[in-house]
């Protein structure tokens, strides 16, 4: 079977490049976002994450009512969601980046993230197809709870699409009023222009993006990702783990059909981040000076790989794509990703 260039390779790669550009310019990393709530009391990135989720939610609801996409929330297996999510959360603090964060930082030339990515991809493959698979499979099948018809549990059952529409719309309105409008008003009070479009090129390519456009851009990218990915036979929006598992499967087994839409997406992320990091003069091949830190990043990557496959999704599959679909499994996994992140950040950085 050859790779379908028109529906799989090109759209996956292009959307990946756009994803990588937004991630690098917006410094969008969920590990930083969640960790810094407790560590630095810094909320910009988490605002960006929440906005991206709500924009995606509203879009998915509308596209579903319009018949453009079929909603496909992830399964609920509480044991797998809890164990996998928690281990993934621990791993991303050790690896110094979530699945998407680690991927885009490879494009910035951070060799520690590159080592983390090797651990992540390998462990994910071992968990999906290798020696670690029985653990993941046991947790996923023994603790699975579905609707009577076998479909995945969502928070509001049959009414979930309507609630996605309401929650998405109301949530965006609340953010616009309480966070964005307030910031603009504060700018006005300082006699600065509310929207300053001068030096737009410099603002886009030389400086980090504001959290709001970053969040909106990632949410909207999710809509196109859903349509494009479904057309390629993978009915789900953005994801990272499956992409790296696919590359491993291709290199190990030689099976070219493993190179699906998601493999081109993750490759695109690295490329996109590389291009904009070069333009912004932020590309540099660098390593942590302390060899121990590289080892810790590798161990973190391994934990992320095992956790993501066990929990049936990383922070992108479960939080960025799964929260908008209101999947009970994704919400539980996401909660434990955040919990694992907080416990580890507290133990590593906050104890005196």
């Amino acid at each position, binding site marked *: 079977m050859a790779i379908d260039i028109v529906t799989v390779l090109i759209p996956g790669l292009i959307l990946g490049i756009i994803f990588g550009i937004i991630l690098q310019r917006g*410094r969008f*990393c969920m*590990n*930083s976002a969640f*960790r*810094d709530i407790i*560590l*630095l009391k*810094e909320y910009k990135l988490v605002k960006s994450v929440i906005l991206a989720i709500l924009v995606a939610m509203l879009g998915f609801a509308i596209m579903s009512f319009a018949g453009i996409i079929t909603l496909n929330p992830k399964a609920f297996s509480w044991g797998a969601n809890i164990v996998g999510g928690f281990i993934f959360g621990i791993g991303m603090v050790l690896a*110094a*980046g979530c699945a998407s964060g680690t991927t885009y930082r490879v494009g*910035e*030339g*951070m060799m*520690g*993230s590159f080592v983390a990515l090797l651990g992540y991809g390998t462990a994910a493959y071992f968990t999906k197809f290798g020696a670690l698979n029985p653990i993941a499979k046991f947790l996923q099948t023994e603790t699975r709870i579905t609707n009577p018809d076998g479909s995945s549990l969502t928070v509001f059952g049959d009414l979930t699409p309507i609630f996605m529409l309401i929650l998405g719309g109301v949530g965006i309105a609340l953010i616009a009023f309480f966070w964005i409008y307030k910031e603009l008003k504060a700018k006005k009070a300082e006699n600065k222009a509310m929207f300053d479009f001068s030096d737009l090129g410099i603002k886009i390519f030389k400086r*980090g993006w504001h959290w709001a456009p970053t969040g909106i851009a990632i949410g909207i990218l999710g809509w196109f990702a859903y349509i494009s990915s479904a057309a390629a036979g993978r009915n789900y929006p953005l994801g990272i783990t499956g992409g790296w598992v696919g590359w491993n499967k291709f290199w190990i087994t030689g099976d070219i059909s493993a190179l699906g839409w998601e493999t081109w997406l993750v490759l695109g992320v690295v490329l996109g981040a590389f291009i904009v*990091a070069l333009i*912004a*003069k*932020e*590309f*540099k091949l*660098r*390593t*942590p*000076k302390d060899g121990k*830190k590289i080892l810790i*990043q590798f161990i973190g990557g391994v934990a992320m790989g095992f956790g993501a496959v066990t929990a049936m999704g990383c922070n992108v599959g479960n939080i960025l794509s799964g929260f908008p679909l209101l999947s009970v499994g994704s919400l539980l996994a996401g909660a434990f990703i955040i919990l694992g992140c907080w416990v580890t950040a507290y133990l590593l*950085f906050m104890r005196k």
Partner: protein
Amino acid sequence: MVEANDILDCRGEVCPYPDVKSKRKVKKMNSGEILKILVDYPLSAERIPETMKSMGNEVLSVEKTDNSEWEIQVKIK
């Protein structure tokens, strides 16, 4: 250019070490002293000055010195 009392080299450090280290460092320094922080991680280069300001310290300068390298000068309150 003012002479720095101390230099904190965070180049090569992974997220969030530059932030945590610089925060710990300035807490140990005396009022009026100047710390020069070297970072090569873009997010920290943007975030450290803000953290320093919110701690009440004065950010004297943020200078991009090379590809993905920044020099931040902070005066302790």
